[in-house]
């Protein structure tokens, strides 16, 4: 099982990369918890999550090959 994590904005700085690959993440809540432990600064940052290019609200089950994006507040325009 492989989950691709896309990082944007200030999260690329905090995590030091644009893309992560993780294995054995059951759902998006587990993913968030896992990353908060690895990167303590993450808990202070408000971010939305998209799974396969769709913004989700609440928890979402993950399966092999899914792409998860972690998106801090937008600042386009």
């Amino acid at each position, binding site marked *: 099982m492989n989950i691709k994590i*896309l990082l*944007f*904005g*200030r999260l690329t700085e905090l995590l030091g990369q644009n893309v992560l690959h993780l294995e054995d993440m059951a759902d998006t809540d587990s993913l968030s918890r896992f990353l908060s432990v690895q990167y303590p600064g993450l808990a202070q940052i408000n971010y939305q999550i*998209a799974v396969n*290019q769709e*913004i989700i609200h609440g928890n979402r089950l993950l399966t092999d090959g899914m792409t998860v*994006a972690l*998106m*801090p*507040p*937008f*600042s*386009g*325009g």
Partner: protein
Amino acid sequence: MREKKLRNIFVNGAIPADTIAESIRKHHTKTDIGAHSIFLGQVRADEIGDQQVAGINYTAYEDLALEKMYEIREAIFAKYPLTCMHIHHSLGMIAAGEICLFVFTSSKHRKAAMEACDELVERIKAELPIWGQEILTDDSHQWKENK
């Protein structure tokens, strides 16, 4: 079923004034248009402490942004009697004073173009996954936040 056609809104670098002129010029043949409304976002050299913003480096989650822009475009066309709608957003480094957003709506009567343009700008700023990193004159940076 109608094909869902995603249009690219992203351009690398600043949006030149000539691009805007060319876009306006193309509408001279559309003689059912009575009104154009244009919004341009320009990068400000804000003072940050004793530094200034030299420019903004824009990145985006392009795939999701184009999906979202498709939704917004459909909603705005459904809500207002528009003839045309064109959106361009810069990616990469845009120096202070340059244009990073170009929203262009056209309609028969002025209200539709004006209201659609305003709503588009609000939705683009709130809903498109785009991030601006303000680069200061001492090469430090901070992440822009939309109000």
